[in-house]
């Protein structure tokens, strides 16, 4: 897994609540059997004026000049700023793959939907939940901006020239992300416990085993 220690860069303000994963990466791009190739279609329905399809290349598309990621001052943004409940809806991890591939390594919002939040950590993307007032202040500074900030996972801080905001994060997730650890490898260290659990469970509830053959 990709590690994340800190990232510094421009923040793109997406002033919307409840941004769902259908918007982050629309369904027509989920047909790929690969993990890459999603960046050009991040926020497809908002970023372009025409309807996207996997067959169309980027330069065949009509850019929506009003969409935040298309504005010159937010080119090369590394951090996305949004409102509450970011990433709600479908479990598609493609949403995180698209953000990451586009170059957004961190999303700051007052709150996140659970599945999206989990998926971020598997892909070296850091979701940072800040209090609504802090998010308000960042929106005010980022638009028109541009605002540059540093997200420091080690120190658990978001720093701008004007302010520093601490954030909470689960210690296990923080550790895995800082070190870029392989989740599966970590869990397989418990292989003996898993087998023991299965032995126990099989004797208590045998109907849970061997049915699907």
């Amino acid at each position, binding site marked *: 897994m990709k590690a994340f220690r800190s990232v510094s860069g421009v923040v793109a303000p997406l002033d*919307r609540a409840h941004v769902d994963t259908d918007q982050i990466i629309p369904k027509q791009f989920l047909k790929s059997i690969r993990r890459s190739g999603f960046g050009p279609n991040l926020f497809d329905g908002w970023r372009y004026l025409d309807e996207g399809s996997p067959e169309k290349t980027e330069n065949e598309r009509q850019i929506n000049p009003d969409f935040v990621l298309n504005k010159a001052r937010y080119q090369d943004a590394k951090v996305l700023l949004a409102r509450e*409940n970011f990433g709600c809806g479908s*479990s598609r*991890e493609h949403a995180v793959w698209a953000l990451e591939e586009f170059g957004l390594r961190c999303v700051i919002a007052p709150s996140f939907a659970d599945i999206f939040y989990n998926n971020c950590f*598997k892909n070296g993307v850091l979701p940072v939940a800040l209090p609504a007032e802090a998010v308000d202040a960042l929106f005010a500074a980022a638009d028109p901006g541009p605002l540059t900030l540093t997200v420091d996972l080690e120190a658990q801080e978001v720093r701008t020239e004007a302010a520093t905001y601490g954030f909470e994060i689960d210690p296990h997730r923080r550790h895995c992300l800082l070190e870029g650890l392989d989740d*599966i490898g970590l869990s397989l260290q418990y292989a003996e416990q898993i087998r023991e659990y299965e032995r126990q469970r099989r004797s208590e*509830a045998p109907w*849970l085993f061997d049915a699907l053959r």
Partner: protein
Amino acid sequence: MGGRTLYDKLWDAHLVAEREDGSALLYIDRHLLHEVTSPQAFEGLRLAGRSPWRIDANLATPDHNVPTTDRAAGIEGITDPISRIQVETLDANCDEFGILEFRMRDPRQGIVHVVGPEQGATLPGMTVVCGDSHTSTHGAFAALAHGIGTSEVEHVLATQCLTAKKAKNFRVWVDGTLGEGVTAKDLALAIIGAMGTAGGTGYTLEYAGPAIQALSMEGRMTLCNMAIEAGARAGLVAFDEVTAAYVEGRPYAPAGALWDRALEAWSDLVSDPDATFDRELVLDASVLEPQVSWGTSPEMVAPITGQIPDPAQCDDPVRAESWAGALRYMDLAAGQALTSIALDRVFIGSCTNSRIEDLRSAAAVARGRKVASTIKQALVVPGSGLVKRQAEEEGLDEIFRAAGFEWRDPGCSMCLAMNADRLGPGEHCASTSNRNFEGRQGHGGRTHLVSPAMAAAAAIAGHFTDVRALLSEQGEQA
């Protein structure tokens, strides 16, 4: 120690290890797979040289991409080459690893959340996961069930466990009795309206109370299916005789002496009377009316007798902006009566509402009536091949066809329009699915979430209408 909730019990029973940092390894009994979120997970396994931990825990079926016509052709019938590759990849992966799969021509194929319960592959007391957010559906069986991402699919394949953190307990208590023409779907929408789409974030919901106990398993599945739309990864309903009656005799359910043992174990799958919940919401089913969503988030709902709310009257500025944006996208106006919304298409299907009971309830409205001439298309898509077969045995397909509905083959279909079934830009659709997000049913399409009975009524009228009036009309004629 105080009593435990149903969720506490399910969690405790599946705990393999707890780490010092508070994270836990949770054992997974059942893993469901479909073609969209699994290819990268299988690829990851191969790249790491790992093999699945326990083959017999997995069940796969293609559903998102499959066409709902021309199924006799099998995979060859998928005209979109990229869709076809995805379905072929699932078949190849299941072959390679020996995973049980119901393929396109298998009568057991269908939407994964319809198939699991129907086959008895979903059982009370299990942990069930799938790379799909609507896995919450299976919570109707007093099973801890939730959606996971593709990396987690790979993790479950490789370890039979999930790294998890315990959620908090939220009880949704529903008193009273649902009125005629008011269904589990209306209840699901009303609950989301009351909680908001983030109201359940970080919680496991347990639906309880007299109105929940009175629901069929189909109704409970509809309710739990939409727990994710309230932000909760999992929804639960306690085990009772209704659950047992549904599960008994299913192909993969225990039988004979094992059945008796299982029943005994399952009888504990209820929250203890003295269990405490971190939050609670109480509703009265008796006053509930059929619901219609008017916006681009499932929390934007109103009763059919109501109007679209005015963003100017909303005191939360972020929310007001969401409402205003939704009205622009939907091309609707504040204050407009819901019954004035004209429809272009009607979709009856999806893992929320494509089970036999849903089709019966839509057919009861459609019987002897005609789809309005202004409706371009009215689709009925059963949730599985077996639902389809049963509906045909009951003659429901004839009722639908006679009324002007199209009777299709099973799959996700227009719920998310990955196959050929979709809305055109600007079209309004009465849909029994679960998400009304922008573009969900097709680029620029406008989705209204309703129950199967309300969708059928809308198809007949050409606009939304109170299905209770149609039903009482029928009552008078009978």
